């Protein structure tokens, strides 16, 4: 029993099959089925994980009209390829970005891109279509499930392919329901205290999501 406890305490994070992309270029889009699902929190966690843990060149696109992140990441302004961005902890942030600029950036950026969709709409669906990994955060609780069905209707077509659904809690019934209804891969949303100060224990769930 004692040995088991020691083993458990000393357990190392297994990082089997961590290889994300052969050509080091990938676009990850994150949308929420309902408001306040933690889209920005997860997007920031992914971007910082890619940059600080995996040492990948990472661009963060905040696809919205008004930036929420400027006060956090806006200390160091940089200009690159005709765009204005901000460099924070190694990640390049393009804030309050519109659809045209986002498309341009996806085409030109040589590295990983995380797109934070403040809200999914017809206008920005073209950007979501361009994402290699599409993440949808939602909840199948009775007061939120309607939103999941609504967004699934909006996503019908190209966007429906390769969606990874991030459930807010680890609920087997909800996982079965999502898989049956939408045929999406289901993951549980990782609990990350601070996306700007990741722990090694945060790596494993993030790898699973973005692979």
């Amino acid at each position, binding site marked *: 029993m004692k040995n088991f406890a020691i083993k458990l305490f000393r357990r190392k994070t297994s990082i089997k099959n961590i290889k994300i992309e052969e050509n080091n270029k990938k676009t990850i889009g994150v949308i929420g089925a309902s408001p306040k699902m933690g889209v920005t929190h997860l997007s920031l966690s992914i971007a910082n994980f890619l940059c600080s843990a995996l040492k990948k060149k990472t661009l963060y696109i905040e696809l919205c009209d008004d930036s929420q992140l400027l006060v956090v990441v806006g200390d160091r302004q940089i200009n690159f390829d005709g765009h204005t961005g901000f460099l924070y902890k190694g990640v390049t942030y393009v804030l309050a970005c519109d659809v045209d600029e986002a498309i341009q950036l996806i085409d030109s950026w040589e590295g990983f891109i995380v797109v934070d969709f403040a809200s999914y709409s017809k206008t920005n669906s073209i950007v979501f279509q361009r994402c290699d990994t599409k993440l949808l955060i939602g909840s199948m609780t009775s007061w939120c499930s309607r939103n999941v069905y609504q967004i699934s209707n909006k996503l019908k077509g190209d966007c429906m392919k390769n969606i990874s659904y991030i459930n807010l809690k680890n609920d087997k019934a909800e996982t079965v329901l999502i898989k049956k209804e939408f045929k999406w891969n289901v993951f549980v949303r990782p609990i990350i205290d601070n996306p700007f100060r990741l722990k*090694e224990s945060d790596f494993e769930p993030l790898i699973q999501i973005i692979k």
Partner: protein
Amino acid sequence: MIPDGISDRYDIVQILQETAATAVLLVNYKKIGALRILKAIHRAHPNAHSILSEAHLLQGIKSSQIPTIISVEDTDEMYYLVEEYVEGQSLREYLLDTTITKETLLNIAISLCNVIEALHNADGGPILYRDMKPEHVILQNDTVRLIDFGIAVRKSEAAKARPLGTINWAAPEQLKAGPLDERCDVFGVGKIIEFMQKNSLEKDDYKLRKLVIQATDEDINNRISSITILKNRLLELQDKTINKYEDKRYLCKKIAVVGAAHAVGATRIAMNMCRLLNKKGTDAYYKDEKGDNVHSLMENLDGAKIKDGILYHDNFRGILNYGEAVETQKPPKGVYLIDCGVDMEAALDCDKIIVIAGGAPWQKQCFPDWIGDKTVTIIGNMTGKLNMIKLAKSLKKKVYMYPHSTSIMGLSKEEERIIQKILQDEKLCY
């Protein structure tokens, strides 16, 4: 000009320096029979007030390593300054017939830093000494004393001061009348360390040489920024000299592996050394100083695990250089194999250096001038025996030959044997 009116109190023992309007004399104070230095200057001399200012400057300094001012007098014609005669041998005289050890060198350099630190922290604002040279450093048994404060100035008045100093010893900005601060004395102490190193048993010590280069950088902005930092760096070196054999398990804590050219296999050898040390029970960690090799391994190695910023894979342990957004990890204790790529400068911070030489005719290899140092080991990789013999002859140093291996991640028996031999021969680790 020998001043009048002093014969009632002083006997002139020796005229040390004499001009038409100034004199520096070694005198005997008749009353108690003590030797003193008497400096005299004519009132009409443009620098007549320098004697008074020197006296003022020295008064505010709390250090037993500078001469004591005994009296300042003036007559109708002259100003006099009488100060303690500092007996002893100047550093230049001492080094004429003595080769010093690293320990002595560091003791002298640290003592010198202490005096300059006292000057820079003087009451009333920092004093810039500006005249550091071996003739002004006097050794009295175990004490180091500094003399001749004739051109010392307060930092606040340095902008108005005349560009004085000794060529080859004074900082370039001092001779060019540029803006002066404490860094001009850092330059001076750096020059003294350089002078001592040339006359020491540690001529090739690259750590000292690196320190000298940083202290005597012509560009003031690249120079060590304060005398306290220089002193701390010297103290670190002194600690290392004293504690060299204290840690019995890890004789060397940091071993740099650096390539004499690109693609000579420095990374592979560093990783294999790390594997072998761990296999033999010594905690060893590979660290990539210049790139993200460990992160690439993390992606590409199946079965690798991470914990506390270390990547574990069989006997390999690599330090992950996480970025700013990952919690910082406490570095583990053990031997570090630092992969410096081809950056020889980066290797200078380590206890031992292993230089990997290649042998391809198209490779332009560069060997630093400290290659002869006893802390440097050379390994020839991916080349023939003849090339290595030639290299050993040209460098006048033993060259180990690394065996050819077909295994990418493994460690062949022959590799194990040669690495073990190198580690034992060169006393890198137990």
